[in-house]
């Protein structure tokens, strides 16, 4: 890990709340989203989807559809290549079924036609011969021997014989000897929990425009969290060289992890290649729910031993996650994260992935962590209630700190958990009186955070402004943060900088906008690109002044002689150096490329007050406060936005959001009417308290903040509901019928 990046400094611009560069475009409708791309001669693409949860596709007759006037191309799984690589094959098979439809909504064919009505009519003319197979949509049912098998031959060697073939992998993390630790406990509590699959719920449906030329070059415009990853996946599926496929990311109307893969993009490319014309596909909301990634749904057993003064003596968890119809590694992250907040001598987590006839999981904010940490934090709360201990004190007593060997292996460097817990304890919210019938809950949260491959170019324009070219779609205000960091480093005003998100032909490879990585990694690369440009500008000034480049320094946006011995020259500002760059060696640009390490883990603590209506089971969230370590908040409003947004999505998950499957294996609620994300009037004001414990791995101390915020709400609300209603629920969502039933006993 690079833990020597950070140096303490006084910030002039970082930490201010500047105006976001994409704000006017977004509020005036000028912003170009995925569905806004058009091309001459463009066709409309539509996808035919399986109405069955599980069915063998015995044959597809497209002849009648092909004969329809205006239909220009039809593809099925047979039009895509056989893939050797298992990961690519799963992505491809999820975009277009090959032999079996694996879930309700799985794509089986696609049409490109001159208009939407023709495309729709053509879908009705495609005849699919299905052999309907038994299905299984629940993780606990799918793990049973004898359950219908979703896919055969996908089980890894570490899964013991005799289990269902739906079980694809097993993982184990931890240290110490739990049996020894449990022996020292005054109380051992074992509980089981279930969480429903939830969808990321981004407002913008997936949309793309593909144009494949007769010479084998192609362009793709799409809404995505990672155009380079789209290029990698689509180039593999289309058997193209990366250089021949240029992918441009649109503005994005929400992603939350769900736009880190492809669904319609390879289909549009294949249709375009076949039709010889550009093809646009825009998903309906129904398609988004049925065929794009929700989270895993889970079933978890937790066992925690505690002394009567609140010290955890041992902890274990067994996690059963299902990421739908394909093998999925999310359970490993859940198993690693489960006890990460605590300094434990004896801890063990076990993860099992189980396939079900549901859509392929896609990442959703801190994938895997909310579910496992929910189970742990709810169990801890019950132990606190049992011993009559303050839940924050118990967490403080057990909190991981610098030097703690984490439950997933690494030893923590400087982390902010204790400071975050102390801030929560000192906050007026924690001591505010509650009325009868109200309850207060708390929970910790954790996420690893990520750095990754990053490439930034910084161009100094001759008028003294700066353009930054980066490769990560802006899903949370990152362009403003990147401009701010460049402004800080260069010593020029924020509004002289414009940051753009480049296409895949304009820049080296950038990892997806995920893992809370962008402000950290792209910020780091931007600062270093600025330093690169500064070095070059010092060289130009040295040349003008006729002194050694080493004798020139950068101070407050200008070159100055390094000391009295360097000579006496008036400072040259960035604008002055840029204006004469043609005479001093040509354009000035800085670059930085890195596979960034040292992202720095992130902890959060949430406090929530609720009131349960005992007659209807409805939970009203009254007050909510989020505490989170941001390392350094580059743009505090966006950091607060991430913290509040995570809380909102967690509130939805805790109370109402769920994928509901019928006995027929079909999704019952593929729309925002019955898949209930919270609306504004469901929410209280959410206070965000930012802590700044600098991350040693970033020049300004930045930690990612995008994901941790969705982790604590699940348990915090569960714990608050318990303290309000007097009954504890062990399943999410805590929808009113479930709460009312629990109240009835």
């Amino acid at each position: 890990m690079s833990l020597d990046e950070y140096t303490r400094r006084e910030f002039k611009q970082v930490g201010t709340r500047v105006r976001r560069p994409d704000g006017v475009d977004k509020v005036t409708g000028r912003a170009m989203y995925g569905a806004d791309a058009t091309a001459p001669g463009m066709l409309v693409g539509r996808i035919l989807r399986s109405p069955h949860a599980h069915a063998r596709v015995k044959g597809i007759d497209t002849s009648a559809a092909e004969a329809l006037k205006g239909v220009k191309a039809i593809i099925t799984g047979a039009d895509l290549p056989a893939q050797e690589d298992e990961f690519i094959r799963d992505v491809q098979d999820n975009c277009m079924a090959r032999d079996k439809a694996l879930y309700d909504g799985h794509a089986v064919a696609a049409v490109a036609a001159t208009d939407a009505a023709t495309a729709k009519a053509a879908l009705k003319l495609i005849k699919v011969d299905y052999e309907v197979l038994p299905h299984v949509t629940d993780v606990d049912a799918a793990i049973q021997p004898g359950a219908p098998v979703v896919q055969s031959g996908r089980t890894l060697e570490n899964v013991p014989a005799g289990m269902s073939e739906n079980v694809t992998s097993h993982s184990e993390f931890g240290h110490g000897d739990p049996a020894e630790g449990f022996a020292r406990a005054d109380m051992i509590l074992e509980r089981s929990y279930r969480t429903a699959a939830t969808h990321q719920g981004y407002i913008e449906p997936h949309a793309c425009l593909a144009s494949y030329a007769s010479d084998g070059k192609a362009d793709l415009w799409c809404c995505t969290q990672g155009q380079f990853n789209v290029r990698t996946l689509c180039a593999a599926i289309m058997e193209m060289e990366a250089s021949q496929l240029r992918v441009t990311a649109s503005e994005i109307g929400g992603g939350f992890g769900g736009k880190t893969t492809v669904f319609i993009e390879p289909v549009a490319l294949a249709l375009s290649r076949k039709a010889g014309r550009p093809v646009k596909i825009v998903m309906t909301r129904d398609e988004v729910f049925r065929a794009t990634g929700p989270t895993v749904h889970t079933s978890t057993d937790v066992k925690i031993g505690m002394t009567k003064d609140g010290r955890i003596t041992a902890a274990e968890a067994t996690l059963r996650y299902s990421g739908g119809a394909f093998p999925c590694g999310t359970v490993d992250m859940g198993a690693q994260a489960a006890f990460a907040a605590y300094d434990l001598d004896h801890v063990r987590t076990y993860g099992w992935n189980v396939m079900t006839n549901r859509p392929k999981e896609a990442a959703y904010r801190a994938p895997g962590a909310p579910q496992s940490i929910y189970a742990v934090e709810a169990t801890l709360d019950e132990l606190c209630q049992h011993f009559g201990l303050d839940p924050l004190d118990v967490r403080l007593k057990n909190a991981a700190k610098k030097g703690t060997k984490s439950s997933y292996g690494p030893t923590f460097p400087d982390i902010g958990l204790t400071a975050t817990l102390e801030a929560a304890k000192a906050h007026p919210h924690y001591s505010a009186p509650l009325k009868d019938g109200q309850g207060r809950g708390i929970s910790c949260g954790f996420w690893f955070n990520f750095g990754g491959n990053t490439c930034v170019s910084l161009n100094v324009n001759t008028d003294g402004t700066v353009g930054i070219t980066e490769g990560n779609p802006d899903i949370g205000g990152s362009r403003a943060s990147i401009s701010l960091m460049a402004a800080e480093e260069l010593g020029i005003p924020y509004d002289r900088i414009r940051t753009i998100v480049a296409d895949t032909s304009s820049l080296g490879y950038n990892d997806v906008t995920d893992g809370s990585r962008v402000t950290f990694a792209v910020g780091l690369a931007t600062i270093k690109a600025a330093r690169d440009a500064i070095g070059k500008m010092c060289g130009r000034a040295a040349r003008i002044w006729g002194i050694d480049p080493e004798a020139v320094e950068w101070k407050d946006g200008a070159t100055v002689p390094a000391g009295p011995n360097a000579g006496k020259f008036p400072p040259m500002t960035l604008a002055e150096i840029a204006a004469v760059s043609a005479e001093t060696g040509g354009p000035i640009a800085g670059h930085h490329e890195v596979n960034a390490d040292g992202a720095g883990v992130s902890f959060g603590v949430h406090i929530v007050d609720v009131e349960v209506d005992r007659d209807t089971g409805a939970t009203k969230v009254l007050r909510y406060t989020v505490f989170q370590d941001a390392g350094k908040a580059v743009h505090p409003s966006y950091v607060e936005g991430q913290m509040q947004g995570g809380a909102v999505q967690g509130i939805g998950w805790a109370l109402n959001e769920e994928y509901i499957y019928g006995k027929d294996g079909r999704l019952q609620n593929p729309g925002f009417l019955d898949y209930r994300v919270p609306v504004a009037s469901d929410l209280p004001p959410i206070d965000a308290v930012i802590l700044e414990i600098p991350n040693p791995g970033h020049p300004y101390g930045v930690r990612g903040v995008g994901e941790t915020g969705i982790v604590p709400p699940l348990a915090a609300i569960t714990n608050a509901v318990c303290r309000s209603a007097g009954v504890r629920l062990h399943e999410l969502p805590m929808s009113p019928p479930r709460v009312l039933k629990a109240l009835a006993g």
Partner: protein
Amino acid sequence: MRYLAANTAHEAAEALASEPGLSRILAGGTDVLVQLKAGMVEPDLVVDIKRIPGIRTISAEAGGFRVGAAVSGAELGEHAGLCALWPGIAEGFQLIGSTQVQGRATMAGNLCNGSPAADSVPPLVAANAVARITGPDGDRDVPIADIPTGPGRTTLKKGEVITSIFLPARPDRAADAYLRFIPRTEMDIAVASAAVSLELDPSGTVRSARVALGAVAPTVVAVEAAASCLIGTSLDDEALARMAAACEAACAPIDDKRGTIEFRTRTAGVLARRAALIAYARAGGSK
């Protein structure tokens, strides 16, 4: 698909009656346009009734109000006299959809959509409101309660159009209230709902009552057994408990993604009890 903007109710009725294919009436369009867009219906004829004279106005009549079939929720909500006379009807209607939807949605459309969860229907039933229907052969007046027959179905015959809804006069010390249960706070469909309309005598005793429940049966149901529990009382706890039990007994809901049979049944009684207390207070009753 053909589109006709009818200039008279008779023209609309004639066009609908003579259409051999599938037809739909367009008022606010908040159901029809969504169904069209989702591909749920593919009508051959759409008849827009918004240009029919008087169909977008509220007029005083016989101490009550006649509400044109194309009056939106937003327009009705701005009518102080109507809101004072029938606050439960106004609040039920205005719970439908969002602010944007309120600018278009109509009570007649909500009724004709035939949903047992329609928010404007229970208070209309509790109010003994009457729909005026124009057909090819003339007009007829039908109590609201007699219009829905099941999810998506009504007693309207081919060619018939609701042109207005009449809300009757009522004495002093009378009021109504409507409550629904939704898992969210807005933008949702009732899992269960209840409307209560009360008239009090000068002493605060309930002289007459109507109770109607939504989303707990194939149609909105008027529960006379529940209403009779309230008559002659001052809404004491025992009367309210008996009324809630009568409501529960009248429930025949479905189990679905929006709620269980058990939950809908229980909640209907809770909502009726709460709505009764609100209506009672509005009518000037004090407890």
